[in-house]
């Protein structure tokens, strides 16, 4: 609670390399979950994190990564459900939090699954 921003930064540093270098076999794809995740992403996230000008979340990530990682979340190769969940629940910097009364745990898991699963994006 003392310093969420620092905690999230730590989560980011720890998770990003692990996620991108994971070697374990890909789990079975739950297409229904991914479709649901896509719908929820478009509803809750895309107004800020969509492609093109006028999307403040994408703009913030462009500045943060300076091209080292894609600014559009759907293009990111290294996201995991836990990573997505931490930012959605707590927010970071300019990004607001989202409570479970807005996006419940099941919906958050679907969004996390969608953003972590590159092929169908």
């Amino acid at each position, binding site marked *: *609670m003392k310093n*969420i*921003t620092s905690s999230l930064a730590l989560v980011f540093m720890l998770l990003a390399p692990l996620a991108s270098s994971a070697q374990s076999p890909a789990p079975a794809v739950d297409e229904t979950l991914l479709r649901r995740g896509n719908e929820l992403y478009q*509803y*809750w996230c895309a*107004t*800020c994190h969509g492609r093109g*000008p*006028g*999307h*403040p*979340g994408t*703009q*913030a990530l462009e*500045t943060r990564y300076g091209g080292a990682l894609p600014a559009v979340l759907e293009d990111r190769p290294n996201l995991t459900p836990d990573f997505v969940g931490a930012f959605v*629940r*707590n*927010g*970071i*910097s*300019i*990004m*607001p*939090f*989202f*409570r*479970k*009364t*807005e996006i419940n745990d099941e919906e958050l898991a679907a969004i996390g699954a969608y953003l972590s699963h590159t092929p169908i994006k």
Partner: protein
Amino acid sequence: MASKYIALPKGVSEKDFDAAIVKFREILGNDSVLTSAEQLAPYTKTMMPVSDAEHTLSAALLATTVEQIQKIVAVCNQYKVPIWTISTGKNLGYGSAAPAERGQVVLDLKRMNRILEVDKDLAFALVEPGVTYQQLYDYIKEHKLGLWLSMPAPTAIAGPVGNTLDRGVGYTPYGEQFLFACGMEVVLANGEVLRTGMGSMPNSNTWQVFKWGYGPYLDGIFTQSNYGIVTKFGFWLMPAPPAFKPFAIQYQHEEDIVEIVETIRPLRISGVIPNAVVIAHALYEAPVTAKRSDYVSGPGSIPDEAVHRIMKDHKLGIWNVYAALYGTQEQIDVNWKIVMEAFLRSGKAKILTEEEVAEDAAFTYRAKLMCGEMTLTEFSLYNWRGGGGSMWFAPVSQARGSETLKQMALTKQILAKYGLDYSGEFIVGMRDMHHIVDVLYDKTDPEQVKAAYQCFDELLTEFSARGYGTYRVNTAFMDKVAETYGPVQRNIHKTLKKALDPNGILAPGKSGIR
């Protein structure tokens, strides 16, 4: 011994709070009473320049029915536990979802999200507090109702109940949103349920069409207040017009605000331009496409020379007027001629039609706001400094050019003293202007946090000394603003509070009322 709670309400023992929590769980179930640090984290992040610890809640209650709320207030009265009610909890820049005071319990009504009625013919809606603008927008589209919403810039994730109760403004002809509110259901501190206006009469079907009822009009006392918990809210919607013509007008000099306001006022009062027009400074619009770091580095506010480079690079005026015409094409053609003649008279204005700036990202989001379309583009402002610090400074001005120039100059001067930029706009009301300035700072930089706090405090002090009142403020400065309106109003607010909520359980501190 360390408490099992991350905070406790002021004056409430842990033993009593334990007992209250047990009763809350009996009412709501275990899963809907949150007390752990992890569960409560999303309620604690604010954008204000104070420690989040000052606004840390003790628990969150996730209610879904009026009956549950009635039982919750009974428990609160028994144990003197204060509750801070939120709807969508997205009052960003004004306090977000966090309570006014450390230890208050947040009553989260986001799950009360039923759209109870939308009447196509009479053009009204009745909704619960958790309904978002996006949800209502989708409902109207799905049912092909042909009605438009008026909403603030954070459209998709905020909602009409919370925004209107805090007297937020939008950008359509229904932009002064509380003017279009019609009927509320309110749970009072004693557990009684009041329906305001015509809603008090059994079998009435005019609750959402006639605002005044009989006797003193009560709806106003449930806005920006803590006299009850609004559980249903009625408001009018604008029928989609046959034609809509958004346009922009640019001016190149800050002093031109005088001409702009003097030109717009008669057009607005007479209804030629019917919507809540925006006069946005270049630094309010620039963040949509520009990065501050491309123009300036180091401490201090951005120099005028850099602002002029931004204007050139991003095709902005120093003032950017966004307005629209509504009606049939014939009505629009007539009014467009009047608008053109008025603005072109001095030779200073550059008028841009939708056809000329359709691809411009700033124009696009402004046009969306003026016709009730969802967008979050204005949040680009938060990228200007980064770091998640924002407070809305919101003084009211007469719609008179000389006054707006004075307010702009004073604001800019005080912001510059603290190294902050003037990201301001004027939203034109019927005869007033909401002067809205986003005081942006980096919340991860302790020096900027300190400067932002002192700056905001000085803005309030200096403006009130000149008779300029603030219409809305974040939860860290509510007492200060309440003080500026004088002791008589404050005493009346307190008298009402004592009468309606003798134990002070409902949102103590809201608008400085306890």
